[in-house]
């Protein structure tokens, strides 16, 4: 009975909460319900103007989440009777929005700055016309505003506008997850994050959960009944998802940088150790389980009542959520940013829940198959366990790699190749009457061995890329470009001074931390490239090292709406923040393309 109630509840939780918003009809109900409390037009769109210098002004549009302005409907004019003459109005390209009647339209979902140039002196007032809509399916009538420009303070404004233009934290266009949330469309958010979760489930981080879950299913003799196995895996997945959601919401509220917290040296070391422990149990060095006394007590407690084993699974799932945490830090950033900025924890929580549910899909499939998807016991199963073990060791190396020097990493990777290769008989002679499959396996093992040796050679010779371990052996050292020189920045104040001192030169600000894998990749593969160095020549290069995560570091990150490194911000000659801010990794080609789009 209790079990049935539990199943019913689980079903209700799934069918009431998640697809409630996914359903098209329901989302229409939502828009209807919310339509009474939509924002007044002046809260949805705010507009300010400021003088930049003797010939320039800028108009800043602040756009509330879930709203957008049409690019073609923004018009800036000089009112009649004013002296100044407009030369041009420069707007960013904006995002594309498909309109069934008018075709593709350019719109702005985020704060936008229009640059305005005047032939001579700027006028004292500007007329700004704009029109936009809400994603809830409502449009606001065109607005016309008279904005005062304080030309008198132009010399002071030139320096004063620096922090002003940087502070609205122009939200980057390329951040898909936060854009999704700002869109405010529930079903899109759910599907988007579910999809992201599904993609994440293909990363090795979810691997450890498969043996844990299969252990539970087989251990409880549940593989005999499909329903039983499925309810076990469902309880496990929900435990994982709920933990994740709650942790995410809490982190979002406290404003703590969860992705940063998960990447401290301590957390990385613990994560790596967990993976090493799990992999050794895969190799059969020991059976991974709780001490028998504790397990017995737990087992006794849970068998006192029916359905108790579902609780214990739920609990196991909740603990397992900690294992996958190193992998999900990056996609979480967008959702967390949204929660901490808007305190809309319902939407953020639903997003996180669908993300983790997406990650749990393979586990649910295993449950639904009642263990038939799991490898059967026997020698084949052992081989699979060994592969899993090696993969988990690889995850451990990957997790810990930011803390290690390049050559140590390489030695680890090399040993990860050489040891399994030898184990798979790369060095043993084949018997006379060897099966074809044995010969193929030996060939693969030899390849792995050779690659491992190449990695070792690369480690000693200081090669740049895991894909080209022998690069520095084969080519002469002259082709390695000199490392890019950055000026260090430590605080917002210092940044503003340095930008002011740039004397009309564009500025690049790179956020860096010792533990940040992508930052190291930028150093190794992007900034070292001649094409990139050429594109960056003539720019002032600044770098903020946020390894310590001090208050100043946090303030710097926050200024640009960043949740942690990597992040690269560009400023034009006038010291204005440009959009997009690069978040995440771009290879050299993408990076140069981004630079070209900025027209610096």
């Amino acid at each position, binding site marked *: 009975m*209790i079990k049935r109630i539990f199943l019913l509840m689980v079903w209700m*939780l799934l069918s009431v909460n998640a697809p*409630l918003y996914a359903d098209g009809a329901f989302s*229409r109900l939502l828009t209807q319900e919310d339509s009474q409390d939509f924002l007044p*037009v002046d809260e949805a769109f705010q507009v300010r103007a400021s003088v930049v210098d003797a010939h320039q002004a800028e108009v800043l549009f602040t756009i509330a989440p879930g709203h957008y302005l049409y690019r073609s409907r923004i018009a800036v004019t000089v009112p009649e009777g004013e002296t100044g003459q407009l030369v041009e109005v420069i707007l960013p390209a904006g995002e594309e929005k498909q309109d*069934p009647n008018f075709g593709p339209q350019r719109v702005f979902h985020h704060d936008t700055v229009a640059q305005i140039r005047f032939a001579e002196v700027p006028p004292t007032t500007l007329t700004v016309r704009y*029109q936009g809509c809400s994603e809830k399916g409502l449009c606001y009538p065109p607005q016309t505003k008279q904005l005062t420009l304080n030309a008198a303070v132009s010399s002071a404004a030139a320096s004063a506008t620096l922090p002003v233009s940087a502070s609205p934290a122009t939200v980057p266009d390329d951040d898909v997850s936060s854009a999704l949330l700002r869109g405010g469309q529930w079903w899109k958010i759910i599907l988007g994050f579910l999809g992201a979760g599904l993609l994440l489930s293909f990363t090795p981080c979810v691997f450890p959960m498969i043996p844990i879950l299969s252990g539970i299913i087989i251990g409880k003799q549940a593989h005999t009944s499909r329903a039983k196995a499925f309810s076990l895996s469902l309880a496990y997945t929900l435990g994982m998802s709920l933990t994740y959601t709650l942790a995410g919401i809490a982190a979002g509220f406290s404003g703590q940088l969860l992705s940063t917290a998960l990447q401290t040296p301590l957390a990385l070391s613990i994560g790596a150790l967990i993976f090493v422990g799990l992999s050794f149990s895969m190799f059969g060095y020991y059976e991974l389980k709780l001490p028998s006394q504790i397990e017995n007590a737990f087992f006794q407690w849970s068998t006192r*009542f029916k359905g108790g084993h579902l609780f214990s699974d739920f609990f196991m799932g909740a603990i397992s959520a900690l294992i996958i945490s190193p992998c999900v830090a990056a996609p979480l950033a967008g959702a967390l940013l949204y929660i901490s900025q808007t305190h809309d924890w319902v939407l953020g929580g639903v997003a996180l829940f669908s993300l983790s549910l997406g990650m749990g899909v393979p586990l649910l499939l295993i449950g639904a198959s009642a263990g038939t998807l799991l490898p059967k016991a026997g020698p084949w199963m052992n081989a699979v366990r060994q592969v899993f073990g090696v993969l988990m060791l690889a995850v451990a190396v990957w997790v810990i790699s930011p803390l290690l020097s390049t050559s140590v990493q390489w030695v680890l990777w090399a040993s990860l190749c050489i040891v399994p290769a030898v184990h798979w008989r790369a060095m043993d002679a084949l018997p006379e009457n060897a099966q074809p499959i044995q010969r193929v396996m030996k060939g693969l093992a030899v390849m792995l061995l050779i690659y491992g040796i190449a990695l070792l050679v690369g480690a000693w010779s200081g090669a740049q890329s895991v894909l080209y371990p022998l690069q520095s052996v084969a080519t002469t050292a002259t082709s390695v470009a000199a490392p890019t020189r950055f000026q260090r920045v430590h605080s917002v104040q210092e940044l503003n001074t340095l930008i002011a001192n740039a004397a009309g030169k564009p500025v690049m600000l790179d956020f860096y931390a010792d533990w940040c894998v992508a930052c190291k990749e930028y150093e190794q593969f992007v900034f070292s490239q001649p094409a990139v160095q050429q594109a960056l020549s003539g720019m002032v290069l600044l770098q903020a090292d946020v390894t310590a995560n001090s208050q100043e570091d946090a303030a710097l990150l926050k200024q640009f709406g960043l949740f942690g490194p990597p992040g690269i911000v560009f400023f034009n000659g006038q010291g204005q923040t440009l959009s997009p801010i690069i978040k995440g990794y771009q290879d050299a080609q993408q990076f140069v393309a981004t630079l070209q789009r900025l027209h610096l």
Partner: protein
Amino acid sequence: MHKTAQVIMAMLLIVLVGGGAYGCYRYWISQSSQADAPVGNVAALWQATLNDVSGKAYPLAQFQGKPAIINFWATWCEPCRDEMPEISALAKAHPEIVVLGLAIDEAQAVHEFTTTTPVSYPLLIAENEGMALLEALGDQKGVLPYTVILSADGKLLHTFFGRVTRQMLEKALHLTP
């Protein structure tokens, strides 16, 4: 111990049922709050005289005495254009109902729109008068689309912010499809 589990289960169940009930309640409130007679000054509507795209004048007083759908829209408003085919189909099926589209827009833009997307009901230009009419009929923020349902005796039956469907309109007018 058996009891403990039952208590926990019962509590979780209560939370879920309670949450569900609260959701239904919110939904019901939102529905019924719209059903509560909306306030508006319908007289302002009947006093107006508006032109169509060809410049022909329509004193709105001539439409009094019938149930009516007044749809405020504009060519620059995507959800407005989206809902118009459905309103048009409804107007065609129910000639006994007055259906008017009041455009908060320029005559030229409306003219261009009607050549590509003709509708079965009159579209009148309310470029200048529209905002005041919207306010008089309960849309203080001037958002579009805004649709007003009037009874035959001129009472404000229902108002809709945002996109409407044929079903919503039929329900508000107590029509059987």
